[in-house]
């Protein structure tokens, strides 16, 4: 694949290196001459100096034949414009923008960017996973449906232990999909499944019902 990367900062550089290793053809567009020289020195002639939001630069680098276009500068608005130019002027099939402000996720989606990667959200999700006491972990967000897949751990002192699934007051639009038990195979819960201490419950829910789901599963 031919992949164009806008922004040769740390993210752009390591991304370019990884994609080269995977055998892709890449090109990094970077404004700063020193950064440009550094990348060319490290990776070979795969970096050109220029503004990735300018039509002239993007024509020069052959954006028309790019399979993927990834904008990873530190500024959300620059990433938005670069992706929009690539999409509307050059019909690049897949545009990906890095965003710092998590609120921009919905805005970018509405403005036609195919994929957004929010570094802030990713770090936040990792913190949730790494901190064992955190009651609810986000595993996956299904953006266009407004749904999310979460994991809830049942602590040993929870008031819901010994109750069956049908006794729990689960919020609407919530489905318990899987229970992972200590040293046992994962089970698909039914209405009569009894909750046990240390159960890891995987559920589909909405961002609004998250809090209610946590209370329903762990007790207050």
């Amino acid at each position, binding site marked *: 694949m031919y992949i164009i990367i806008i922004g040769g900062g740390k993210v752009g550089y390591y991304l370019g290196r990884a994609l080269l290793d995977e055998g892709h053809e890449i090109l990094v567009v970077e404004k700063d001459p020193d950064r440009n020289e550094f990348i060319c020195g490290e990776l070979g002639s795969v970096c050109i100096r220029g503004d990735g*939001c*300018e*039509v*002239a630069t993007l024509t020069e680098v052959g954006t028309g034949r790019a399979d993927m276009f990834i904008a990873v500068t530190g*500024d*959300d*608005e*620059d990433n*938005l*414009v670069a992706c*929009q*130019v690539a999409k*509307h*002027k050059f019909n690049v099939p897949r545009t990906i923008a890095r965003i710092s*402000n998590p*609120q921009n996720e919905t*805005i970018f989606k*509405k*403005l036609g960017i195919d994929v957004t990667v929010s570094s802030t959200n990713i770090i936040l999700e990792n913190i949730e996973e790494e901190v064992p006491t955190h009651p609810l972990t986000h595993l996956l967000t299904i953006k266009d449906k407004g749904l999310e897949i979460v994991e809830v751990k049942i602590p040993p002192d929870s008031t819901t232990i010994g109750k069956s699934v049908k006794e729990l007051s689960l919020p609407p639009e919530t489905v318990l999909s899987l229970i992972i038990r200590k040293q046992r195979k994962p089970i698909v819960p039914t209405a009569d499944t009894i909750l046990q201490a240390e159960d890891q419950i995987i559920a589909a829910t909405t961002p609004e019902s998250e809090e209610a789901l946590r209370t329903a599963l762990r007790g207050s």
Partner: protein
Amino acid sequence: MKVVIMGCGRVGARLAGLLDIEGHNVAILDTDAYSFRRLPPDFGGTALVGNGTDEESLKKAGIEEADVFVSLTQGDNRNVMAAQIAKYIFNVPKVVCRIYDPLRRELYNSLGLEAFSPTTIFAQMLKEKLEG
């Protein structure tokens, strides 16, 4: 009418002053409070510190009731992003945007954004003046 202006530079401040005198309800946003010194001393509108590409700041400036939104910061991309938020997220009826880069202006014009390039306009004007 209710007008929200983003960017209190020379043009933004002047436009805000002109609209204010005519009796319009003007709110002007800038990330730097120091730029509000450019507003006329008798300016009767609202001056707010905030980023126009941020939904919360725009709401504080009253974007939800605005009839007009104008983006006039020094950054083309910031202007484009703010204008698109105003037009497509908040459905402001009239949105105008400054884009210095003529090619970028052309592209966004064709995408339905009302944008002006001072570069093109001023160069053309100078050319006509020089040719007499």
